[in-house]
Protein backbone atom coordinates (compact mmCIF):
# COMPACT_ATOMS: atom_id res chain seq x y z
CA UNK A 1 0.00 0.00 0.00
CA UNK A 2 2.68 2.40 1.04
CA UNK A 3 4.63 1.50 -2.06
CA UNK A 4 1.65 2.24 -4.25
CA UNK A 5 1.36 5.72 -2.82
CA UNK A 6 5.05 6.40 -3.23
CA UNK A 7 5.23 5.08 -6.75
CA UNK A 8 5.25 8.52 -8.37
CA UNK A 9 8.79 9.65 -7.57
CA UNK A 10 11.11 6.94 -8.91
CA UNK A 11 13.46 5.10 -6.62
CA UNK A 12 16.38 7.48 -6.78
CA UNK A 13 14.61 10.68 -5.84
CA UNK A 14 14.41 12.02 -9.35
CA UNK A 15 12.87 15.48 -9.45
CA UNK A 16 11.49 17.31 -12.40
CA UNK A 17 9.46 20.37 -11.77
CA UNK A 18 9.13 22.25 -14.98
CA UNK A 19 9.99 22.37 -18.61
CA UNK A 20 13.09 24.31 -17.62
CA UNK A 21 14.38 21.27 -15.80
CA UNK A 22 14.53 19.34 -19.01
CA UNK A 23 16.89 22.00 -20.26
CA UNK A 24 18.80 22.08 -17.01
CA UNK A 25 19.60 18.40 -16.92
CA UNK A 26 21.27 18.56 -20.31
CA UNK A 27 23.06 21.79 -19.49
CA UNK A 28 24.51 20.13 -16.40
CA UNK A 29 25.56 16.96 -18.16
CA UNK A 30 26.77 18.45 -21.41
CA UNK A 31 30.13 19.93 -20.33
CA UNK A 32 31.26 16.56 -18.98
CA UNK A 33 30.04 14.72 -22.03
CA UNK A 34 31.69 17.20 -24.33
CA UNK A 35 35.06 17.16 -22.59
CA UNK A 36 35.24 13.40 -22.35
CA UNK A 37 34.09 12.95 -25.93
CA UNK A 38 36.73 15.28 -27.31
CA UNK A 39 39.50 13.95 -25.08
CA UNK A 40 38.51 10.32 -24.88
CA UNK A 41 36.42 9.06 -27.74
CA UNK A 42 38.12 11.16 -30.41
CA UNK A 43 41.66 10.03 -29.47
CA UNK A 44 40.58 6.38 -29.22
CA UNK A 45 39.01 6.52 -32.66
CA UNK A 46 41.94 8.45 -34.10
CA UNK A 47 44.41 5.89 -32.69
CA UNK A 48 42.43 3.08 -34.27
CA UNK A 49 42.59 4.91 -37.60
CA UNK A 50 46.31 5.59 -37.19
CA UNK A 51 47.02 1.91 -36.59
CA UNK A 52 45.90 1.14 -40.15
CA UNK A 53 47.90 3.91 -41.84
CA UNK A 54 51.53 4.95 -42.20
CA UNK A 55 51.11 8.15 -40.17
CA UNK A 56 54.40 9.63 -39.06
CA UNK A 57 54.94 12.54 -36.70
CA UNK A 58 57.89 14.16 -38.43
CA UNK A 59 56.72 13.69 -41.98
CA UNK A 60 54.59 16.63 -42.99
CA UNK A 61 52.97 17.33 -46.34
CA UNK A 62 53.05 13.77 -47.62
CA UNK A 63 49.78 11.94 -48.26
CA UNK A 64 48.99 9.49 -45.51
CA UNK A 65 48.40 6.05 -46.93
CA UNK A 66 46.13 3.28 -45.80
CA UNK A 67 48.26 0.22 -45.13
CA UNK A 68 45.69 -2.27 -43.86
CA UNK A 69 47.04 -4.75 -41.35
CA UNK A 70 50.69 -3.97 -42.11
CA UNK A 71 51.41 -2.49 -38.66
CA UNK A 72 49.92 -5.48 -36.92
CA UNK A 73 51.92 -7.88 -39.05
CA UNK A 74 55.05 -5.90 -38.22
CA UNK A 75 54.06 -6.11 -34.57
CA UNK A 76 53.54 -9.85 -34.45
CA UNK A 77 56.83 -10.52 -36.17
CA UNK A 78 58.74 -8.17 -33.91
CA UNK A 79 60.67 -10.01 -31.20
CA UNK A 80 61.42 -6.84 -29.28
CA UNK A 81 57.71 -6.12 -29.06
CA UNK A 82 57.03 -9.61 -27.70
CA UNK A 83 59.72 -8.99 -25.15
CA UNK A 84 57.94 -5.88 -23.90
CA UNK A 85 54.59 -7.71 -23.88
CA UNK A 86 56.15 -10.51 -21.84
CA UNK A 87 57.73 -8.01 -19.43
CA UNK A 88 54.38 -6.32 -18.87
CA UNK A 89 52.57 -9.59 -18.15
CA UNK A 90 55.39 -10.77 -15.86
CA UNK A 91 55.25 -7.47 -14.00
CA UNK A 92 51.49 -7.72 -13.55
CA UNK A 93 51.64 -11.35 -12.39
CA UNK A 94 54.41 -10.43 -9.98
CA UNK A 95 52.98 -7.35 -8.32
CA UNK A 96 49.22 -7.92 -8.14
CA UNK A 97 49.19 -11.19 -6.12
CA UNK A 98 51.88 -9.79 -3.82
CA UNK A 99 49.89 -6.62 -3.23
CA UNK A 100 46.80 -8.69 -2.59
CA UNK A 101 48.59 -10.87 -0.06
CA UNK A 102 50.10 -7.92 1.78
CA UNK A 103 46.81 -6.05 1.58
CA UNK A 104 44.86 -8.99 2.99
CA UNK A 105 47.27 -9.67 5.86
CA UNK A 106 47.39 -6.03 6.87
CA UNK A 107 43.65 -5.49 6.50
CA UNK A 108 43.02 -8.47 8.81
CA UNK A 109 45.61 -7.12 11.25
CA UNK A 110 43.96 -3.70 11.23
CA UNK A 111 40.66 -5.41 11.86
CA UNK A 112 42.08 -7.09 14.97
CA UNK A 113 43.31 -3.96 16.69
CA UNK A 114 41.59 -0.92 18.12
CA UNK A 115 44.27 1.23 19.71
CA UNK A 116 46.27 3.16 17.12
CA UNK A 117 43.95 2.05 14.32
CA UNK A 118 43.47 5.55 12.97
CA UNK A 119 47.18 6.23 13.12
CA UNK A 120 48.06 3.13 11.12
CA UNK A 121 45.30 3.79 8.61
CA UNK A 122 46.44 7.35 8.02
CA UNK A 123 50.06 6.34 7.68
CA UNK A 124 49.24 3.54 5.24
CA UNK A 125 47.65 6.14 2.98
CA UNK A 126 51.00 7.90 2.53
CA UNK A 127 52.46 5.88 -0.40
CA UNK A 128 49.37 6.58 -2.49
CA UNK A 129 50.04 10.32 -2.27
CA UNK A 130 53.67 10.17 -3.32
CA UNK A 131 54.61 10.62 -6.95
CA UNK A 132 55.81 7.37 -8.57
CA UNK A 133 58.82 9.30 -9.85
CA UNK A 134 59.84 10.11 -6.28
CA UNK A 135 59.23 6.54 -5.12
CA UNK A 136 61.30 5.17 -7.98
CA UNK A 137 64.10 7.59 -7.21
CA UNK A 138 64.15 7.14 -3.45
CA UNK A 139 63.76 3.36 -3.32
CA UNK A 140 65.31 2.35 -6.62
CA UNK A 141 68.17 4.79 -6.88
CA UNK A 142 69.01 5.36 -3.25
CA UNK A 143 68.00 2.35 -1.13
CA UNK A 144 68.85 -0.21 -3.80
CA UNK A 145 71.95 1.65 -4.95
CA UNK A 146 74.49 -1.05 -5.69
CA UNK A 147 77.74 0.34 -4.28
CA UNK A 148 76.90 2.22 -1.12
CA UNK A 149 73.12 1.89 -0.81
CA UNK A 150 71.88 0.78 2.61
CA UNK A 151 70.39 -2.50 1.40
CA UNK A 152 73.53 -3.76 -0.29
CA UNK A 153 75.57 -2.45 2.63
CA UNK A 154 73.47 -4.60 4.94
CA UNK A 155 73.83 -7.62 2.68
CA UNK A 156 77.61 -7.20 2.56
CA UNK A 157 77.76 -6.69 6.31
CA UNK A 158 76.01 -10.03 6.68
CA UNK A 159 78.81 -11.51 4.61
CA UNK A 160 77.15 -11.95 1.21
CA UNK A 161 77.84 -10.48 -2.20
CA UNK A 162 76.05 -7.25 -3.05
CA UNK A 163 73.12 -7.80 -5.41
CA UNK A 164 73.10 -6.09 -8.85
CA UNK A 165 69.67 -4.58 -8.25
CA UNK A 166 69.52 -2.52 -11.41
CA UNK A 167 72.21 -3.88 -13.67
CA UNK A 168 71.12 -7.53 -13.86
CA UNK A 169 68.02 -8.12 -16.04
CA UNK A 170 66.03 -10.24 -13.58
CA UNK A 171 67.01 -8.25 -10.53
CA UNK A 172 66.08 -5.02 -12.30
CA UNK A 173 62.58 -6.37 -12.89
CA UNK A 174 62.45 -7.48 -9.26
CA UNK A 175 63.45 -4.03 -8.03
CA UNK A 176 60.74 -2.42 -10.13
CA UNK A 177 58.21 -4.84 -8.69
CA UNK A 178 59.33 -4.03 -5.14
CA UNK A 179 58.74 -0.35 -5.82
CA UNK A 180 55.26 -0.95 -7.17
CA UNK A 181 54.40 -3.24 -4.26
CA UNK A 182 55.64 -0.64 -1.78
CA UNK A 183 53.46 2.00 -3.35
CA UNK A 184 50.24 0.17 -4.18
CA UNK A 185 49.77 -2.42 -1.42
CA UNK A 186 48.15 0.41 0.51
CA UNK A 187 45.35 0.53 -2.02
CA UNK A 188 44.60 -3.14 -1.36
CA UNK A 189 44.75 -2.57 2.39
CA UNK A 190 42.19 0.24 2.17
CA UNK A 191 39.85 -1.65 -0.12
CA UNK A 192 39.98 -4.92 1.82
CA UNK A 193 39.67 -3.02 5.08
CA UNK A 194 36.46 -1.46 3.76
CA UNK A 195 35.34 -4.96 2.76
CA UNK A 196 36.05 -6.40 6.21
CA UNK A 197 34.09 -3.63 7.86
CA UNK A 198 31.11 -4.86 5.89
CA UNK A 199 31.41 -8.36 7.43
CA UNK A 200 29.25 -8.32 10.56
CA UNK A 201 31.40 -8.75 13.63
CA UNK A 202 28.69 -10.89 15.28
CA UNK A 203 29.14 -13.50 12.60
CA UNK A 204 32.80 -13.96 13.35
CA UNK A 205 32.19 -13.68 17.06
CA UNK A 206 29.60 -16.45 16.86
CA UNK A 207 31.94 -18.65 14.85
CA UNK A 208 34.78 -18.27 17.32
CA UNK A 209 32.48 -18.97 20.29
CA UNK A 210 31.35 -22.11 18.50
CA UNK A 211 34.97 -23.16 18.55
CA UNK A 212 36.06 -22.23 15.04
CA UNK A 213 39.75 -21.41 14.87
CA UNK A 214 41.08 -18.12 13.59
CA UNK A 215 41.89 -19.68 10.22
CA UNK A 216 38.54 -21.44 9.90
CA UNK A 217 36.71 -18.20 10.58
CA UNK A 218 38.89 -16.42 8.07
CA UNK A 219 38.54 -18.89 5.21
CA UNK A 220 34.94 -19.94 5.78
CA UNK A 221 33.31 -16.66 6.76
CA UNK A 222 35.45 -13.59 6.24
CA UNK A 223 37.05 -14.37 2.88
CA UNK A 224 33.87 -15.31 0.98
CA UNK A 225 32.16 -12.17 2.23
CA UNK A 226 34.94 -9.80 1.14
CA UNK A 227 35.32 -11.55 -2.20
CA UNK A 228 33.25 -9.04 -4.24
CA UNK A 229 35.31 -6.08 -3.07
CA UNK A 230 38.52 -8.07 -3.37
CA UNK A 231 37.62 -8.85 -6.98
CA UNK A 232 37.03 -5.18 -7.77
CA UNK A 233 40.28 -4.15 -6.12
CA UNK A 234 42.20 -6.85 -7.97
CA UNK A 235 40.69 -5.86 -11.30
CA UNK A 236 41.64 -2.21 -10.76
CA UNK A 237 45.20 -3.20 -9.87
CA UNK A 238 45.48 -5.62 -12.83
CA UNK A 239 44.46 -2.83 -15.20
CA UNK A 240 46.85 -0.36 -13.60
CA UNK A 241 49.71 -2.84 -13.63
CA UNK A 242 49.33 -3.28 -17.38
CA UNK A 243 49.75 0.48 -17.79
CA UNK A 244 53.06 0.64 -15.90
CA UNK A 245 55.55 3.08 -17.33
CA UNK A 246 56.68 5.93 -15.07
CA UNK A 247 58.73 4.02 -12.51
CA UNK A 248 60.43 2.05 -15.27
CA UNK A 249 61.24 5.13 -17.27
CA UNK A 250 62.81 6.89 -14.32
CA UNK A 251 64.62 3.91 -12.92
CA UNK A 252 66.01 1.79 -15.74
CA UNK A 253 64.70 3.38 -18.93
CA UNK A 254 63.68 -0.16 -19.88
CA UNK A 255 67.13 -1.62 -19.40
CA UNK A 256 69.42 -3.38 -18.96
CA UNK A 257 68.90 -4.16 -22.62
CA UNK A 258 65.15 -4.55 -22.88
CA UNK A 259 64.75 -6.48 -19.65
CA UNK A 260 62.31 -4.08 -18.00
CA UNK A 261 60.76 -2.30 -20.97
CA UNK A 262 56.96 -2.27 -20.70
CA UNK A 263 54.55 -2.00 -23.62
CA UNK A 264 53.64 1.59 -22.75
CA UNK A 265 57.30 2.53 -22.68
CA UNK A 266 57.76 0.89 -26.09
CA UNK A 267 54.80 2.90 -27.41
CA UNK A 268 56.30 6.09 -26.06
CA UNK A 269 59.62 5.22 -27.71
CA UNK A 270 58.08 4.32 -31.05
CA UNK A 271 55.42 7.00 -31.25
CA UNK A 272 56.64 10.06 -29.35
CA UNK A 273 60.42 9.69 -29.62
CA UNK A 274 60.56 7.87 -32.94
CA UNK A 275 57.54 9.58 -34.47
CA UNK A 276 56.11 6.33 -35.81
CA UNK A 277 52.51 7.08 -34.83
CA UNK A 278 51.12 4.19 -36.82
CA UNK A 279 53.26 1.51 -35.22
CA UNK A 280 52.78 3.03 -31.77
CA UNK A 281 49.02 3.03 -32.25
CA UNK A 282 48.94 -0.62 -33.26
CA UNK A 283 50.90 -1.47 -30.12
CA UNK A 284 48.44 0.53 -28.02
CA UNK A 285 45.55 -1.47 -29.42
CA UNK A 286 47.42 -4.69 -28.82
CA UNK A 287 47.88 -3.65 -25.20
CA UNK A 288 44.16 -2.98 -24.93
CA UNK A 289 43.47 -6.44 -26.32
CA UNK A 290 45.80 -8.07 -23.78
CA UNK A 291 44.10 -6.13 -20.98
CA UNK A 292 40.64 -7.13 -22.16
CA UNK A 293 41.67 -10.79 -22.36
CA UNK A 294 43.22 -10.84 -18.88
CA UNK A 295 40.46 -8.72 -17.37
CA UNK A 296 37.78 -10.91 -18.94
CA UNK A 297 39.47 -14.12 -17.79
CA UNK A 298 39.76 -12.70 -14.30
CA UNK A 299 36.11 -11.69 -14.20
CA UNK A 300 35.00 -15.11 -15.43
CA UNK A 301 37.17 -16.76 -12.77
CA UNK A 302 35.81 -14.64 -9.93
CA UNK A 303 32.25 -15.14 -11.07
CA UNK A 304 32.75 -18.90 -10.98
CA UNK A 305 34.45 -18.77 -7.58
CA UNK A 306 31.69 -16.62 -6.17
CA UNK A 307 28.90 -18.86 -7.41
CA UNK A 308 30.75 -21.85 -5.93
CA UNK A 309 31.16 -20.27 -2.52
CA UNK A 310 27.50 -19.37 -2.45
CA UNK A 311 26.48 -23.05 -2.60
Amino acid at each position, binding site marked *: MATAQRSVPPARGVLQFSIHDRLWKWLL*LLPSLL*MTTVLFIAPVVWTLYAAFTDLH*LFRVGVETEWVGLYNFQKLLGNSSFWRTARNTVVFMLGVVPMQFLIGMVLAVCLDNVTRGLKLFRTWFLMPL*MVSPVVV*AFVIGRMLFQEDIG*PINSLIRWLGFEGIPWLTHPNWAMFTIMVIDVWQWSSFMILMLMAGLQGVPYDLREAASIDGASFWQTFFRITLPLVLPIAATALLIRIIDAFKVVDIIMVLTGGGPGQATESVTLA*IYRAGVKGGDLAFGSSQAYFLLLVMVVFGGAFLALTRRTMSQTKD
Partner: protein
Amino acid sequence: MKVSTQRRFIRGVSYGILILWSLTLVFPMYWVVITSFKNPVDMSIKATYLPFLDFEPGLHAWRYLFVERLGWFMQPFSNSMIVAFVSSSIALVVGSMAGYALARFDFNGKNNSIVLGFMAQRMFPGALFMLAFLVMFRELRLLDTKTALVIVYAAGAIPFIVWVMRDFFEGLPVEIEESALIDGANRLVVIFRIAMPLAAPGLVAVFVLSLIGAWNEYIVALTLTFRDSITIPLFMGMQVSQTGYTEWWNMSAISLVSVIPVVTAGMALEKYITSGLTFGALKG
Protein backbone atom coordinates in the same frame (compact mmCIF):
# COMPACT_ATOMS: atom_id res chain seq x y z
CA MET B 1 39.82 -18.40 29.13
CA LYS B 2 41.32 -20.16 26.17
CA VAL B 3 39.54 -17.89 23.75
CA SER B 4 40.90 -14.76 25.39
CA THR B 5 44.53 -15.95 25.35
CA GLN B 6 44.16 -16.83 21.70
CA ARG B 7 42.71 -13.42 21.01
CA ARG B 8 45.49 -11.68 22.90
CA PHE B 9 48.01 -13.67 20.88
CA ILE B 10 46.33 -12.70 17.61
CA ARG B 11 46.28 -9.07 18.64
CA GLY B 12 49.98 -9.18 19.52
CA VAL B 13 50.88 -10.70 16.16
CA SER B 14 48.69 -8.12 14.42
CA TYR B 15 50.49 -5.24 16.08
CA GLY B 16 53.81 -6.82 15.16
CA ILE B 17 52.89 -7.05 11.48
CA LEU B 18 51.39 -3.55 11.43
CA ILE B 19 54.52 -2.04 12.95
CA LEU B 20 56.71 -3.97 10.52
CA TRP B 21 54.80 -2.60 7.52
CA SER B 22 54.78 0.90 9.00
CA LEU B 23 58.57 0.72 9.27
CA THR B 24 58.79 -0.49 5.67
CA LEU B 25 56.87 2.62 4.68
CA VAL B 26 58.87 4.90 7.00
CA PHE B 27 62.33 3.82 5.99
CA PRO B 28 62.47 5.37 2.49
CA MET B 29 61.07 8.59 3.96
CA TYR B 30 63.67 8.58 6.70
CA TRP B 31 66.38 7.93 4.15
CA VAL B 32 65.37 10.78 1.86
CA VAL B 33 65.21 13.17 4.82
CA ILE B 34 68.67 12.33 6.10
CA THR B 35 70.14 12.29 2.60
CA SER B 36 68.95 15.84 2.02
CA PHE B 37 71.20 16.87 4.95
CA LYS B 38 74.23 14.89 3.86
CA ASN B 39 77.43 16.30 2.44
CA PRO B 40 79.07 14.74 -0.61
CA VAL B 41 81.74 13.18 1.60
CA ASP B 42 79.09 11.26 3.56
CA MET B 43 78.12 9.28 0.49
CA SER B 44 81.38 8.79 -1.30
CA ILE B 45 82.81 5.76 0.49
CA LYS B 46 80.10 3.98 2.42
CA ALA B 47 76.52 4.34 3.52
CA THR B 48 75.90 6.51 6.56
CA TYR B 49 72.80 6.05 8.65
CA LEU B 50 72.53 8.36 11.62
CA PRO B 51 72.84 12.13 11.60
CA PHE B 52 75.38 13.52 14.15
CA LEU B 53 76.60 10.00 14.97
CA ASP B 54 78.15 8.90 11.72
CA PHE B 55 77.80 12.01 9.61
CA GLU B 56 77.59 15.73 10.22
CA PRO B 57 74.34 17.06 8.73
CA GLY B 58 74.59 20.17 6.60
CA LEU B 59 72.12 22.49 4.97
CA HIS B 60 73.92 22.87 1.67
CA ALA B 61 71.30 21.00 -0.38
CA TRP B 62 68.54 23.18 1.01
CA ARG B 63 70.59 26.32 0.47
CA TYR B 64 71.26 25.19 -3.10
CA LEU B 65 67.56 24.67 -3.70
CA PHE B 66 66.11 27.73 -2.03
CA VAL B 67 68.90 30.29 -2.41
CA GLU B 68 71.21 29.50 -5.28
CA ARG B 69 68.85 27.84 -7.76
CA LEU B 70 65.44 29.04 -6.62
CA GLY B 71 64.31 30.13 -10.08
CA TRP B 72 65.42 26.88 -11.67
CA PHE B 73 63.26 24.92 -9.29
CA MET B 74 60.38 27.37 -8.91
CA GLN B 75 59.33 27.19 -12.54
CA PRO B 76 58.31 23.51 -12.59
CA PHE B 77 56.96 23.87 -9.07
CA SER B 78 54.64 26.72 -10.00
CA ASN B 79 53.70 24.95 -13.24
CA SER B 80 52.61 21.94 -11.22
CA MET B 81 50.69 24.13 -8.78
CA ILE B 82 48.82 25.96 -11.52
CA VAL B 83 48.10 22.87 -13.60
CA ALA B 84 46.94 20.80 -10.62
CA PHE B 85 44.70 23.48 -9.11
CA VAL B 86 43.16 24.75 -12.33
CA SER B 87 42.51 21.31 -13.80
CA SER B 88 41.04 19.94 -10.56
CA SER B 89 38.81 22.99 -10.12
CA ILE B 90 37.44 22.72 -13.64
CA ALA B 91 36.91 18.98 -13.23
CA LEU B 92 35.21 19.52 -9.89
CA VAL B 93 32.68 22.02 -11.20
CA VAL B 94 31.99 20.22 -14.47
CA GLY B 95 32.02 16.71 -13.02
CA SER B 96 29.89 17.41 -9.97
CA MET B 97 27.30 19.17 -12.12
CA ALA B 98 27.02 16.02 -14.21
CA GLY B 99 26.97 13.92 -11.05
CA TYR B 100 24.08 16.01 -9.77
CA ALA B 101 22.20 15.73 -13.05
CA LEU B 102 22.61 11.94 -13.09
CA ALA B 103 21.45 11.69 -9.48
CA ARG B 104 18.40 13.95 -9.70
CA PHE B 105 17.12 13.73 -13.28
CA ASP B 106 16.00 10.87 -15.40
CA PHE B 107 17.82 10.44 -18.69
CA ASN B 108 15.28 8.09 -20.27
CA GLY B 109 16.25 5.43 -17.75
CA LYS B 110 19.81 5.39 -19.08
CA ASN B 111 21.47 7.01 -16.05
CA ASN B 112 23.39 3.89 -15.09
CA SER B 113 24.63 3.33 -18.62
CA ILE B 114 25.85 6.92 -18.85
CA VAL B 115 27.76 6.56 -15.58
CA LEU B 116 29.23 3.26 -16.74
CA GLY B 117 30.23 4.94 -19.99
CA PHE B 118 32.16 7.51 -18.00
CA MET B 119 33.80 4.87 -15.85
CA ALA B 120 34.80 2.71 -18.80
CA GLN B 121 37.17 5.48 -19.81
CA ARG B 122 39.29 4.85 -16.75
CA MET B 123 39.95 1.30 -17.86
CA PHE B 124 41.61 2.24 -21.14
CA PRO B 125 45.39 2.42 -21.17
CA GLY B 126 46.89 5.90 -21.39
CA ALA B 127 48.98 4.69 -24.30
CA LEU B 128 45.81 4.75 -26.35
CA PHE B 129 45.52 8.53 -25.95
CA MET B 130 49.13 9.60 -25.72
CA LEU B 131 49.87 9.73 -29.44
CA ALA B 132 46.53 11.27 -30.32
CA PHE B 133 47.08 13.99 -27.72
CA LEU B 134 50.48 14.70 -29.17
CA VAL B 135 49.10 15.21 -32.67
CA MET B 136 46.01 17.06 -31.44
CA PHE B 137 47.90 19.58 -29.33
CA ARG B 138 50.50 20.00 -32.02
CA GLU B 139 47.77 20.98 -34.46
CA LEU B 140 46.33 23.37 -31.88
CA ARG B 141 49.82 24.79 -31.27
CA LEU B 142 49.44 24.00 -27.59
CA LEU B 143 52.48 21.78 -27.12
CA ASP B 144 54.57 22.72 -24.11
CA THR B 145 51.80 24.83 -22.60
CA LYS B 146 50.07 24.54 -19.27
CA THR B 147 46.74 24.83 -21.10
CA ALA B 148 47.26 21.46 -22.75
CA LEU B 149 47.95 19.76 -19.42
CA VAL B 150 45.00 21.50 -17.75
CA ILE B 151 42.65 20.26 -20.49
CA VAL B 152 43.93 16.68 -20.37
CA TYR B 153 44.00 16.41 -16.58
CA ALA B 154 40.56 17.98 -16.18
CA ALA B 155 39.05 15.59 -18.71
CA GLY B 156 40.87 12.70 -17.06
CA ALA B 157 39.48 13.49 -13.61
CA ILE B 158 35.86 14.03 -14.69
CA PRO B 159 34.76 10.35 -14.94
CA PHE B 160 35.83 9.56 -11.40
CA ILE B 161 34.19 12.73 -10.08
CA VAL B 162 30.93 11.97 -11.90
CA TRP B 163 30.94 8.45 -10.51
CA VAL B 164 31.57 9.39 -6.89
CA MET B 165 29.47 12.56 -6.81
CA ARG B 166 26.47 10.90 -8.39
CA ASP B 167 26.39 8.39 -5.55
CA PHE B 168 26.98 11.16 -3.09
CA PHE B 169 24.10 13.31 -4.32
CA GLU B 170 21.82 10.28 -4.36
CA GLY B 171 22.58 9.82 -0.69
CA LEU B 172 21.37 13.32 0.15
CA PRO B 173 17.74 13.84 1.11
CA VAL B 174 15.65 15.12 -1.79
CA GLU B 175 13.17 16.90 0.49
CA ILE B 176 15.30 19.96 1.14
CA GLU B 177 15.76 20.60 -2.56
CA GLU B 178 12.11 19.87 -3.22
CA SER B 179 10.85 22.42 -0.72
CA ALA B 180 13.27 25.03 -2.02
CA LEU B 181 12.00 24.46 -5.54
CA ILE B 182 8.40 24.69 -4.38
CA ASP B 183 9.28 27.96 -2.64
CA GLY B 184 10.23 29.21 -6.06
CA ALA B 185 14.00 28.90 -5.89
CA ASN B 186 15.90 28.67 -9.14
CA ARG B 187 17.44 25.32 -10.04
CA LEU B 188 20.93 26.83 -10.05
CA VAL B 189 20.37 28.26 -6.58
CA VAL B 190 19.24 24.84 -5.40
CA ILE B 191 22.36 23.22 -6.80
CA PHE B 192 24.95 25.71 -5.65
CA ARG B 193 23.37 26.89 -2.40
CA ILE B 194 21.81 23.67 -1.14
CA ALA B 195 23.09 20.51 -2.80
CA MET B 196 26.77 21.43 -3.19
CA PRO B 197 27.28 22.56 0.44
CA LEU B 198 25.62 19.37 1.66
CA ALA B 199 27.92 17.35 -0.57
CA ALA B 200 31.03 19.14 0.70
CA PRO B 201 32.73 16.02 2.13
CA GLY B 202 32.45 14.26 -1.21
CA LEU B 203 33.61 17.34 -3.08
CA VAL B 204 36.66 17.66 -0.84
CA ALA B 205 37.54 14.01 -1.40
CA VAL B 206 37.31 14.06 -5.18
CA PHE B 207 39.03 17.44 -5.40
CA VAL B 208 42.03 16.32 -3.37
CA LEU B 209 42.23 13.03 -5.25
CA SER B 210 42.26 14.75 -8.62
CA LEU B 211 44.78 17.26 -7.28
CA ILE B 212 47.10 14.43 -6.28
CA GLY B 213 46.59 12.71 -9.61
CA ALA B 214 47.48 15.83 -11.58
CA TRP B 215 50.40 16.65 -9.30
CA ASN B 216 51.98 13.23 -9.75
CA GLU B 217 51.16 12.49 -13.40
CA TYR B 218 54.17 11.73 -15.53
CA ILE B 219 53.71 10.17 -18.95
CA VAL B 220 51.25 12.66 -20.48
CA ALA B 221 53.33 15.57 -19.20
CA LEU B 222 56.37 13.93 -20.72
CA THR B 223 54.60 13.64 -24.06
CA LEU B 224 53.12 17.13 -24.17
CA THR B 225 55.68 19.37 -22.49
CA PHE B 226 59.43 19.66 -22.73
CA ARG B 227 60.77 23.01 -21.57
CA ASP B 228 58.64 25.90 -20.36
CA SER B 229 55.72 23.94 -18.96
CA ILE B 230 57.38 20.91 -17.39
CA THR B 231 55.88 19.78 -14.11
CA ILE B 232 57.62 18.60 -10.97
CA PRO B 233 57.65 14.84 -11.77
CA LEU B 234 59.11 15.61 -15.19
CA PHE B 235 61.71 17.93 -13.74
CA MET B 236 62.72 15.24 -11.27
CA GLY B 237 62.78 12.54 -13.90
CA MET B 238 65.18 14.68 -15.91
CA GLN B 239 67.42 15.25 -12.92
CA VAL B 240 67.49 11.55 -12.04
CA SER B 241 68.60 10.46 -15.45
CA GLN B 242 71.09 13.30 -15.78
CA THR B 243 72.83 13.26 -12.44
CA GLY B 244 73.02 9.58 -11.64
CA TYR B 245 75.26 9.33 -8.61
CA THR B 246 76.40 12.76 -7.89
CA GLU B 247 73.63 14.97 -6.57
CA TRP B 248 71.57 12.80 -4.29
CA TRP B 249 71.26 15.45 -1.59
CA ASN B 250 69.76 17.99 -3.99
CA MET B 251 67.41 15.40 -5.44
CA SER B 252 66.34 14.40 -1.94
CA ALA B 253 65.55 17.99 -1.05
CA ILE B 254 63.55 18.41 -4.26
CA SER B 255 61.69 15.15 -3.60
CA LEU B 256 60.72 16.31 -0.13
CA VAL B 257 59.52 19.71 -1.28
CA SER B 258 57.40 18.10 -3.99
CA VAL B 259 55.98 15.36 -1.80
CA ILE B 260 55.28 17.12 1.50
CA PRO B 261 52.36 19.33 0.34
CA VAL B 262 50.29 16.50 -1.14
CA VAL B 263 51.12 13.96 1.54
CA THR B 264 50.22 16.41 4.30
CA ALA B 265 46.98 17.36 2.59
CA GLY B 266 46.11 13.74 1.91
CA MET B 267 46.83 12.52 5.41
CA ALA B 268 45.02 15.44 7.03
CA LEU B 269 41.95 14.56 4.99
CA GLU B 270 42.42 10.82 5.56
CA LYS B 271 38.75 10.12 6.23
CA TYR B 272 37.58 11.74 3.01
CA ILE B 273 40.34 10.29 0.88
CA THR B 274 39.75 6.74 2.07
CA SER B 275 36.03 7.03 1.44
CA GLY B 276 36.70 8.55 -1.98
CA LEU B 277 39.10 5.75 -2.91
CA THR B 278 36.89 2.92 -1.73
CA PHE B 279 33.54 4.43 -2.66
CA GLY B 280 33.24 2.94 -6.12
CA ALA B 281 34.08 -0.57 -5.01
CA LEU B 282 31.68 -0.51 -2.09
CA LYS B 283 28.82 0.60 -4.29
CA GLY B 284 29.69 -1.61 -7.23
